[in-house]
């Protein structure tokens, strides 16, 4: 029940603030306001251009290896408690990942010039 009241107050507050600023604020409509703001520099063209898939590949591979590193944090914290068995488990995990790394290198996913 208190949660519901708080929710109502939160929604009500947002709504009142938005309506109030809409009603009270001064309005000056110019065409400049509809242009994308790019640090004051006039924008050129459309942002939706075809991009080389290489950027996407690098980004997605970054995520992969980033996640790998994240897995090391909990392992590092529990390093002693997990003992040799944990060490082998992590070793296997890294080995599998290394397979993947070897694979992408061989496939030429990181080659920038064609």
């Amino acid at each position, binding site marked *: 029940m208190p949660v519901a009241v708080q929710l109502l107050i939160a929604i009500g507050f947002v709504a009142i603030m938005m309506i109030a600023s809409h009603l009270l604020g001064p309005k000056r409509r110019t065409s400049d306001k509809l242009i994308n703001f790019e640090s004051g520099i006039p924008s050129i063209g459309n942002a939706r251009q075809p991009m080389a898939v290489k950027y996407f590949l690098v980004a997605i591979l970054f995520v992969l290896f980033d996640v790998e590193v994240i897995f090391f944090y909990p392992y590092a914290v529990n390093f002693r408690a997990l003992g040799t068995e944990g060490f082998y488990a992590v070793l296997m995990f890294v080995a*599998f990942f290394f*397979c993947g790394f*070897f*694979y992408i290198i*061989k*496939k030429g996913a990181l080659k920038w010039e064609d």
Partner: protein
Amino acid sequence: MKPLIASAVFGVIMMFAALSVKEKKTFTLLATLLLVLLTGVNIYELMHIMNGEIPEALFNGMLKYGSFSIWFNTLMTGIALLYVLLCGKHIEKVGQHTGEYYGLIFFILCGANLLSGYNNLLILFLGIEIISIPQYILAGSDKRNLKSSEASLKYFLMGAFSTGILLMGIALLYGAMHTFDVSQFNFMEHNVDAMSLGGIFFIMVALGFKVSAAPMHFWTPDVYDGAPTPFTAIMATIVKAAIFVAFLRLFSETFGGISQHWTLVLSIVTALTLFVGNITAVFQQSVKRMLAYSSIAQAGFMLFAVLAVNATGFKGIIIYAVAYSVATIGMFAVLMKLKDYTYDGFNGLGRKHPLLAFTATIFLLSLAGIPLTGGFFAKYFVLTAVMEQGTGMMWLVIFALLMAAISAYYYFKVLMAMYFKKGEPELAIEVTTGDRFFLGLAAAAIIVIGVAPDILLAWLKN
């Protein structure tokens, strides 16, 4: 555990083979070899269980294999072998990365293995993800084809969404039960409250999505139609059967004690699935799309095994999975031989290629559930499983029989085209002796199951 490791390692081997091997035929050969090996490892594991060895829980009780799960895995690897033998040539033609496709198929088998042996909701989640992600890639493997890309994207987005729902369900159940371990779930001790029921409902929706049960089926026709045909064949068979086993194990073993709370919802889902799948399949022009809808309809029948909550349900799902998978893979294999995927493409096939037409006839009869084919006993087992639970489900069984009669219409439309219409069917690929042999083998397997379904059950303990 050995088959699980083997399937993952074989997948990696296929991946690395893709780096050095140039000839596409070599991949099919290597994949066949590795699948034979994998089936062998499964049979080896099965022998241990049959000799009275009690399987131990692995990884702190996260995985637990019984005779059911190992036998199911053996069957699935066997069917995957048949699939590669029948469709290998077509897989080679899809794109440039044949080795990777086979690698992904091994990863699918790895996921199927996890789904049959999970004892922990985390492993269930992991299995579903491992089985789904290769599918997203395989669906889009025909990169230049717009429909294939659409199928991949659609499947990925909707699949990711349903995975979120599954996670939500698992989280709610964890909140109610304080554990992920399904063998420690105790609905008597903790009251059946909104949290656990919500969790069960979410999991039902997510798994229903993965097996394409109505009303979560909307992705199915587009994805199955858009994906390259050889990969549609594996998505509609092995993957679906594996997820059904997870579905069945979760709802029969874990949630079976409180079945009164969820059977009504699931029976409505079943009725809807049967209705939507069968009725929509009637109006299709393309046989590939018809098979997509037929796979929805067949999922409706497999849901009966889940509804039954008894041992016959487990037997039913084994027979259904095998009869349905073999028939569907065979039918897709015949379809892939043709250039034109519409019904008209089948015109006159009976005269020009009698063996293709004859095996297709057996596959279609099995899918329709005609006696003396495997499909008959498959339907028989799942329906009797529900009947054993009393007469409360009588309406659903009668409805299912009615729908089976409707399904005969669209399966027989293909038969009519093959035998009673004149035409010159064009083949996309030459039919070799090997194709004939393996198609015949698949058809023979269906007849054998249709005559003696017990051979599939002899390997199940209790």
